[in-house]
């Protein structure tokens, strides 16, 4: 895929610049990058995510101009933004709901990668950098949630920082170090604000590495078959995918702005409109929806340390995925067994999310335990075995061939997302 730049600057300024710092060439290379011509709409979520990162940074920077990270003033300063800052309500609702939409998009993006085997050689690093991005996103969102200094902000941060106290010996010192004191208080708020501002810029760097890494090995595609001929199998990223992605981004924005303008508090907790009070514990402490599956795993284990370890392991196991999946075939389209297990895994993940929002009692706990066990079994038992015993369907010779086959047979496997 990569080679010498084909960029030929025509005007004198561009020539002068290109000879000294080839940034224009880099942009050009990115724009004309040969991209498989069979990417479906599940592949537009990368562009959607990049858009949300930029939107979150822009709204966040302006919000920070009006926000005060001080326990005595934070809650009131957020309300000042909502009431007195020009279009402050728009900025804050766009930022808060933007976080939710960011996670929705990242989950679709991750499950797309799981379905089409985008994590397999030679794309292990694309996958791993992506996971690092996901972890950094979670840290950013978690710290951002403390900033409004509402009841759920305070108690959520208290509960989550308290996880670390489960570790023997080092546990309590870690908790104190994270909080900057024995309890969540002003030092916690100020450091979370500082890091919440810092991490998105680290995310930008990680995203650049993520894109760089797949520009070295090339995009995966719905057939999972590598590009054989640049001419027959690929199109230039621009205009083909810039336009297609733009369409998808705008469609996603319709959902996003519907939430911002007509249901801005739908995904929030009513309790967070009550100022943080260390003396009053809310009836139920629930994390934001995008953390619920992990919350369910945490609570499935009766032992605190065990729960915390299992929760971290549920993300850690994803890092090993490229080596746990023993099948050489990438796309689930050609893996009948894997495809079934993929949808069970999707259902299990959604089920864990549902259970994370329910009280930890009775049947919910039992269900959480079963689903947690299955979550790990999927990676540690099912994937290694399925890869060994499954007979994959015949792969198309090339992307170009698969396109022709699909057009000949409209019920072909190219239309995976409709069958799903």
């Amino acid at each position, binding site marked *: 895929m990569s080679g010498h730049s084909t960029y030929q600057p025509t005007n004198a300024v561009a020539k002068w610049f290109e000879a000294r710092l080839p940034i224009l060439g880099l942009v050009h290379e990115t724009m004309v990058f040969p991209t498989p*011509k*069979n990417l479906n709409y599940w592949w537009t979520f990368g562009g959607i995510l990049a858009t949300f990162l930029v939107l979150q940074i822009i709204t966040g920077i302006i919000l920070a101009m009006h926000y005060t990270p001080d326990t005595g003033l934070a809650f*009131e300063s957020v*309300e000042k933004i*909502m*009431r007195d800052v020009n279009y402050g*309500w*728009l900025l804050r*609702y766009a930022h808060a709901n933007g976080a939710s939409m960011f996670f929705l998009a990242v989950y679709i993006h991750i499950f797309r990668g799981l379905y089409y085997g985008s994590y397999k050689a030679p794309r292990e690093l694309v996958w791993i950098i992506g996971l690092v991005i996901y972890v950094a996103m979670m840290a950013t969102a978690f710290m951002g949630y403390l900033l409004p200094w509402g009841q759920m902000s305070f108690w959520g941060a208290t509960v989550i920082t308290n996880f670390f106290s489960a570790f023997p010996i080092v546990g309590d010192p870690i908790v104190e170090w994270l909080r900057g004191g024995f309890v969540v208080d002003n030092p916690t708020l100020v450091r979370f604000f500082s890091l919440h501002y810092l991490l998105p810029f680290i995310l930008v760097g990680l995203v650049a590495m993520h894109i760089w890494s797949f520009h070295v090995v090339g995009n995966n595609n719905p057939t999972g078959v590598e590009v054989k001929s640049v001419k027959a199998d690929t*199109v230039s990223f621009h*205009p*083909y995918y810039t*336009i*297609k992605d*733009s*369409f998808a981004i*705008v*469609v996603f*924005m*319709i959902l996003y*702005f*519907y939430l*911002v*303008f*007509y249901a*801005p*508090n739908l995904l929030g907790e*009513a*309790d967070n*409109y*009550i100022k943080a009070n260390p003396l009053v514990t809310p*009836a139920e402490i629930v994390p934001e929806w995008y953390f619920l599956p992990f919350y369910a795993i945490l609570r499935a284990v009766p032992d605190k340390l065990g729960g915390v370890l299992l929760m971290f392991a549920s993300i850690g196991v994803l890092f090993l995925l490229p080596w746990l999946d023993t099948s050489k075939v990438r796309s689930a389209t050609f893996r*009948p*067994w894997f495809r*079934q*297990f993929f*949808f*069970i895994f999707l*259902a*299990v993940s959604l*089920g864990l999310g549902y259970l994370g929002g*329910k*009280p930890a*009692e*009775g*049947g*919910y706990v*039992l*269900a959480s335990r*079963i689903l947690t066990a299955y979550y790990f079994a999927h990676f540690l038992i099912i994937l290694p075995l399925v890869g060994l*015993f499954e*007979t994959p369907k015949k792969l198309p010779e090339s992307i*170009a061939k698969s*396109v*022709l086959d699909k*057009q000949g047979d409209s019920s072909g496997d190219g239309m995976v997302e409709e069958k799903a």
Partner: protein
Amino acid sequence: MGVKIMIRTLKTMFRSKITATTLALVILSAVNLTPVSAKVEIEFEKQDWSFNGIFGTYDRGALQRGFQVYKEVCAACHSLNLASYRNLSQAGGPEFSEEQVKAIAAEAEVRDGPNDDGEMFDRPGRPSDKFVSPYPNDEAARAANGGALPPDLSLIIKARRDGANYLYSLMTGYGEEPPAGVEVRDGMNYNPFFTGAQIAMPAPLSEEAVEYSDGTKPTVENMSRDVVTFLAWASEPHMEARKTMGFKVLLYLIILAGLLYATTRKLWSRVKH
């Protein structure tokens, strides 16, 4: 040998109509999801609020009457710390005239200072002042209310699940006899809509607690609906501007999406994909 048979069975199963997905659903539905101590969540009385829905706005008359209820009844104990008197004349709110707002503000006594002699002094309120709290601090509020703290009402509608219906139900939910076996503690009042069904606040509204000037009957239901509308506005003063802008933004995006879809189709018609 056994493993081979197992694999063959599994293979047949996956090829047959009983897919693994259905199998998983069967297993999952077999797990009883009912929690042991199922909490009965009380249903609030659903009202058809003027501010519901995409085109919903605050009923101007209800906002003005609701302000009157707040001022004459609620404000005796409940603060409205995040609102200023000037908000009462802003677009999308009760929209009192600026003269009315000046008069409303002037009724309040605001602690100001220090003056040139270093003394604190009281002066009549101005539109730029925040609503004056009935108590100087939380401790004074508790002391005057038998230990219970009357919450600030600035965000009350957003700070409760289904806030508008909740507050309406709470306001109109007094007067029932507690069911047998429920003992209402001293100084508490029975109200099924409050957490624990016991609330320190006695029934705040009674028939004709205020005198409306526009001919609306001051029934408990009407006053409750009005004060909930007013407090919904206090929680979300820019809701009308938000919904108006949202409509334009969504319309713009839908048209743009249509154009981009057409562009995508046209562009990709050149490529077999």
